[in-house]
């Protein structure tokens, strides 16, 4: 049982453990939208004919030289579950942050794994219902971090 946004109800019901195939239609819409604008240098898909994730590589102009690469990996499923993984590489390490909605042995369906190493278990949270709100919230949080590199 899912609501109009395709979100499975939370709580300890059997539905809480459901899984679903990757939503190729949604990934294709997201790819089309994110290709416009200047945030990303390119978006990779694998396999190309029906991708299981979008790898969105941020343009290096948004970072000082201390950051070698930064990308956002986007996976969305037909039941509304998702995993969005932000990853930065630095000369001496990396920074990771994940926004997740999926069954878990240690968290509610909605949770985050905060940086620097996106540890398990993460923090319980509540993500927006609409996929567009989830995605724009995530992009905004990343932009806030990007701006932070340039502040004193």
């Amino acid at each position, binding site marked *: 049982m899912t609501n109009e946004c395709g979100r499975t109800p939370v709580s300890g019901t059997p539905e809480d453990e459901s899984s679903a195939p990757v939503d190729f239609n949604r990934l294709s819409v997201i790819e089309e939208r994110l290709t416009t604008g200047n945030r990303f240098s390119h978006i990779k898909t694998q396999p190309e004919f029906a991708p299981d994730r979008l790898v969105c590589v941020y343009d290096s*102009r948004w970072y000082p030289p201390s950051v070698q690469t930064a990308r956002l990996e986007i996976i969305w499923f037909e039941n509304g579950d998702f995993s969005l993984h932000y990853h930065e590489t630095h000369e001496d390490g990396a*920074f990771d942050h994940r926004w997740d909605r999926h069954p878990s042995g240690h968290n509610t369906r909605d949770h985050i794994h*905060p940086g620097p190493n996106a540890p398990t278990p993460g923090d319980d949270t509540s993500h927006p219902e609409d996929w567009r709100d989830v995605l724009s919230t995530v992009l905004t949080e990343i932009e806030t971090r990007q701006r932070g590199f340039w502040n004193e």
Partner: protein
Amino acid sequence: MEDPDQDLKATDGERSTAPDFDALVSPEELVRGNRTRDDFLDAVLGLDSPATIDEIANHADHGRDAAKEYLEWFDRMGIVTRVTDSPVTYERNQEYLIWRQVQQLREQYTTDDLLEFLQTETEQDEIYRETFDAESPETVSISAHAADTDRSIESVWDALSAWKTTRRRITLLERALASAPDGTTDRHAAA
């Protein structure tokens, strides 16, 4: 999300070339696309049950007149199906979405490409059947399998989702191949 560590921040010299974040399209605008059509497409593709014109206008954040016009157009395109007349309700045409994906596969790849993809996905399906010791992902319980194999809920969920994705790809590829015209000559092979 955390702020960057101090040692990663731009140096005084680098700061003079700071990028202009304010020139970016806002995330809200970016994910919504820039056309009214995108708003209505998102609204109808998100429907799981029949909805009235007013409900769809509300989802799309546009007026009723625009909703009526777009829904009539989507109905002609086969994207939505009109369910009832009083009140008028529409639902998403799931068959259309599948048909569109199959058409895209047919347009972008040769029959030989599609056969190769199908071979890869079928082999992957066989691996999942052995891994889960099951004929279909529908029969696997995430928690039971996690307990039996001493794996985490997340890793079993991840693998089971991937298996379902493989199954979905096989369905799409089989349909694309079934709709291939007989005696198609592969354009790479012919070259």
